[in-house]
């Protein structure tokens, strides 16, 4: 998902006897559906796990602006351009909500940004694929934001208050993203043959990367077990992936597009679709930094950060000068 393969304590979930009294009380609050707030006591593992997860989520929102920003200047109409700008601007907002939520755990935004730039923290694998044609704006909104929604909706109920509240805001804004993407796909699929081919090609390229967004199967993962006990993670990766496939297949049919998976079939017994797993070796190599756009994405982010430094410094200097003038006058 936007946060993939988040490491927890790695020790597995502690039994009641292994927990200290404080940990037991903490777990009881979570089990009772209470929200944990920044000033509350929390285990270090919970705090660190959340910093990794919220940080990775925030980075994904920010880096996720790049593949779409690529097409803003070349949107086919002024209206599409305005739609896309609004969408990309929302993603910047999502990044900010999430950095703020992470900051309540005692890490600064500057530290998080440094870790993104140094490669110490990751962002979602999906943003390391290029956006080659305008149809990719449709596919990204439809599939990538669609997959994000699938993951973010249950996270509105996550146990950490600031994270849950950020998710509520994000989810409210997210459905416009998916719909504007689907709208682009509809326009292209109702267009001429060449446009339809572009739409199909975009689906072909983004289908498996979208499935990878949920991360590899984690049904046996000790990290996920702990995250789920803490209600930092609400569903397994496989559950969400299945839900995504089941919801997306009819949408593709509506568009008259073919999902690029010959094994895809509705399983009459389960009511779910059977489908081909994505190539997990590709996923792992992207996480290692070897995807088609990893280097470019980080370069662009680092460059924006460095080249914006004089603006940030200037604003601070201006604010300080004004404050000291005011103090002198007062």
């Amino acid at each position, binding site marked *: 998902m936007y946060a993939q393969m988040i490491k927890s304590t790695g020790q597995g979930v502690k039994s009641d006897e292994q927990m200290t009294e404080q940990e037991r009380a903490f777990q009881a609050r979570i089990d009772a559906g209470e*929200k944990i*707030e920044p*000033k*509350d006591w929390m285990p270090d593992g919970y705090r660190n796990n959340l910093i990794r997860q919220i940080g990775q989520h925030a980075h994904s929102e920010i880096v996720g602006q790049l593949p779409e920003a690529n097409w803003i200047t070349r949107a086919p109409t002024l209206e599409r351009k305005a739609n896309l700008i*609004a969408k990309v*601007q*929302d993603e910047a*907002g999502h990044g*900010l*909500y999430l950095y*703020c939520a992470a*900051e309540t755990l005692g890490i600064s*935004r500057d530290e998080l940004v440094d870790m993104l730039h140094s490669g110490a923290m990751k962002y979602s694998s999906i943003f390391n694929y290029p956006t080659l044609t305008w149809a990719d704006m449709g596919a990204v909104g439809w599939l990538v934001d669609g997959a994000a929604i699938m993951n973010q909706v249950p996270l509105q109920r996550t146990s950490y208050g600031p994270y849950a509240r950020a998710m509520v*805001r994000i989810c409210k*804004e997210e459905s416009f993203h998916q719909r504007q993407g689907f709208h682009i796909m509809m326009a292209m699929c109702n267009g001429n043959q060449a446009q339809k081919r572009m739409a199909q090609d975009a689906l072909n390229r983004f289908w498996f990367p979208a499935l990878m967004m949920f991360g590899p199967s984690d049904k046996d993962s000790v990290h996920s077990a702990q995250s789920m006990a803490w209600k930092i993670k609400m569903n397994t990766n496989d559950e969400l992936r299945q839900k995504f496939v089941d919801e997306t297949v009819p949408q593709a049919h509506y568009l008259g597009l073919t999902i690029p998976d010959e094994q895809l079939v509705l399983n009459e017994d389960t009511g779910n679709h059977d489908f081909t797993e994505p190539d997990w070796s590709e996923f792992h190599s992207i996480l290692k930094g070897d995807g088609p756009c990893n280097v470019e994405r980080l370069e662009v982010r680092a460059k924006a950060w460095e080249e914006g430094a004089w603006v*940030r410094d200037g*604003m*601070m200097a*201006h*604010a300080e000068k*004004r*404050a000291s003038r005011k103090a002198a006058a007062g």
Partner: protein
Amino acid sequence: MSHRHVGSLHAPDGEMAIKNARDVYTRRNEGVSIWVVESNQVLASSPTDKGPLFEPSNSKVYRHPTFYDIPDDVGAM
């Protein structure tokens, strides 16, 4: 007009904080005015203190008008 907390942000000063808040928190017309305050100026109670802070008002039902039974004959009151 009641203001409610919508979120935090970074800014060099109050003026910029208002501009940033407008961009970050009111993209869909969610506000008619913005208050900003430096977070280090905010003193907050802890959610775990909610018992001692708010429990006492729970037991004082006589602070609500419905506590007092007034016959209907009296008319609107």
